[in-house]
């Protein structure tokens, strides 16, 4: 970014950061404390380094582990920034600094971390492999520019569909068809309409967005008048919708995946409200192949890189996902003492979904008992809430397998097959 678009030298930026971290520290604004509190358990069990810091806070008798309005210093991060700045100034120094990052001590640290550290990701499988940092490149040309709309008097630009930026544009495209002019921002009709349009736009995000280098995202259609007028806007009703209703665009979109959150339904909403989002979600694996973490780490790429239907995310989950996609109504079906499943899905009702969900609730509870699902290992100590399975269509998270790629062989992720193959498999699963 700095090289292609910036005016400052790397030294300047990193130097300011290092000074801040060493001397004043950074301000811990209230939302930082709030967010950390919301996922404190996760930090304590899965981020040991940070967990120790939180424990210190607790010993010091603070109500919140990370005290509000207190500046926090970080000497190791400061040292790393100093190290990066060490090579001489100027163009050649910049190149050397970049090399230090992609191939030097930073790259080594990343590699060491990936090889030796057991970490949890949302699949519970941990990071399996990072492509070596030497293959990472900043400033690669993106296959698409920013998304933009001219609905407003001033053209409005947001990120491409690799981020969630276009959601705001689609919300505007939907709202364009409503007469909101006479309404104040406090009017219930105004709030209701804005919120219902937001739900539709976010549902489309779940179904269609992804990194445009790997997934073909129908951005033009999503922002087009035709799509929003004909298909989407009429879904806004008088009552609040509680369904996830992505649209239908032939040749695009993908089946939902199923995730499980520990604790009660309200915990999920709560975590979301604080921006802690998905940190408490886990994949449902069923019992047909939850791999041991160590095993998983050796053989699986991280879930983000893994298409559905591989590595223990077996046929049962595929089937379940497909069935849930056809089930619009939230169902809560007590099945196991600790496992209720809330299945939320896409279009028309199918009785099979609840049964499949119940089956998986059982599997999940079993996995939790056996401690096979790392995220659920506290279930025994936390008898409180039901296990909640939430059905979220997430095509974007999946990338095809590397074609025989291997990080030790240094095969970059460019070697992944073309995105076409994702869509094909997604189409079949639907």
């Amino acid at each position, binding site marked *: 970014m700095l090289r292609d678009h910036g*005016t400052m030298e790397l030294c300047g930026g990193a130097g300011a950061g290092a000074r801040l971290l060493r001397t004043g520290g950074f*301000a811990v604004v*209230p*939302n930082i404390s709030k967010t950390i509190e919301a996922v404190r358990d996760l930090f304590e069990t899965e981020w040991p380094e940070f967990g120790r810091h939180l424990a210190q806070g607790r010993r010091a008798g603070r109500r919140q582990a990370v005290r509000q309005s207190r500046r926090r210093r970080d000497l190791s991060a400061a040292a790393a920034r100093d190290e990066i700045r060490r090579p001489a100034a100027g163009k050649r120094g910049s190149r050397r600094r970049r090399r230090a990052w992609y191939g030097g001590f930073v790259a080594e640290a990343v590699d060491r971390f990936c090889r030796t550290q057991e970490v949890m990701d949302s699949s519970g499988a941990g990071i399996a492999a990072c492509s070596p940092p030497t293959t990472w490149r900043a400033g690669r040309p993106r296959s698409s520019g920013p998304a933009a709309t001219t609905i407003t008097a001033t053209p409005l630009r947001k990120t491409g569909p690799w981020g969630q930026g276009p959601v705001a544009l689609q919300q505007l495209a939907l709202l364009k068809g409503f007469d909101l002019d006479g309404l104040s921002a406090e009017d*219930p009709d105004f*709030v209701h309409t804005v*919120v219902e349009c937001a739900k539709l736009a976010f549902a489309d995000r779940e179904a269609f967005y992804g990194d445009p280098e790997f997934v073909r995202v129908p951005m033009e259609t999503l922002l087009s008048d035709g799509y929003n007028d004909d298909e989407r806007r009429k879904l806004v009703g008088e009552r*609040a919708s*509680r369904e996830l209703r992505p649209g239908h665009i032939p040749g695009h979109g993908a089946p939902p995946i199923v995730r499980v959150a520990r604790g009660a339904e309200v915990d999920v909403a709560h975590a979301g*409200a604080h921006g802690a989002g998905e940190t408490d979600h886990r994949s449902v694996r069923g019992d047909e192949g939850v791999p041991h973490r160590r095993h998983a780490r050796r053989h699986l790429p991280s879930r983000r890189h893994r298409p559905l239907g591989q590595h223990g995310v077996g046929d049962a989950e595929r089937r379940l996902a497909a069935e849930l996609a056809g089930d619009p109504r939230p169902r809560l079906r007590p099945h196991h003492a600790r496992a209720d499943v809330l299945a939320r899905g896409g279009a028309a009702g199918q009785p099979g979904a609840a049964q499949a969900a119940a089956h998986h609730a059982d599997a999940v509870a079993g996995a939790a008992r056996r401690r096979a699902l790392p995220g659920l290992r506290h279930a025994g100590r936390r008898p409180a809430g039901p296990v909640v399975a939430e059905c979220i269509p997430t095509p974007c998270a999946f990338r095809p397998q590397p074609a025989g790629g291997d990080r030790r062989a240094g095969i970059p992720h460019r070697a992944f097959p073309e995105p076409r193959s994702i869509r094909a498999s997604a189409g079949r699963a639907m």
Partner: protein
Amino acid sequence: MTVEGRFPPATIAALRRRGHDLEVDADWSLGRVSAAAKDGPLLKAARQPAVHAGLCDGKMMAALERSDKSRR
């Protein structure tokens, strides 16, 4: 859905009647709004009160960076 307490009680009640599952949070607790503009020699930036220290500085820096670039 979470709304700020700045909404009038009547609005909140009306939304609940329409089936929204509402949680009322503190005033100014949600959303992050900031803006920056270059107006002749002046750089202007503003942010919502109290929540995000430093956001304004960041926006100013970004605006400064852009204006530097356009001058070159």
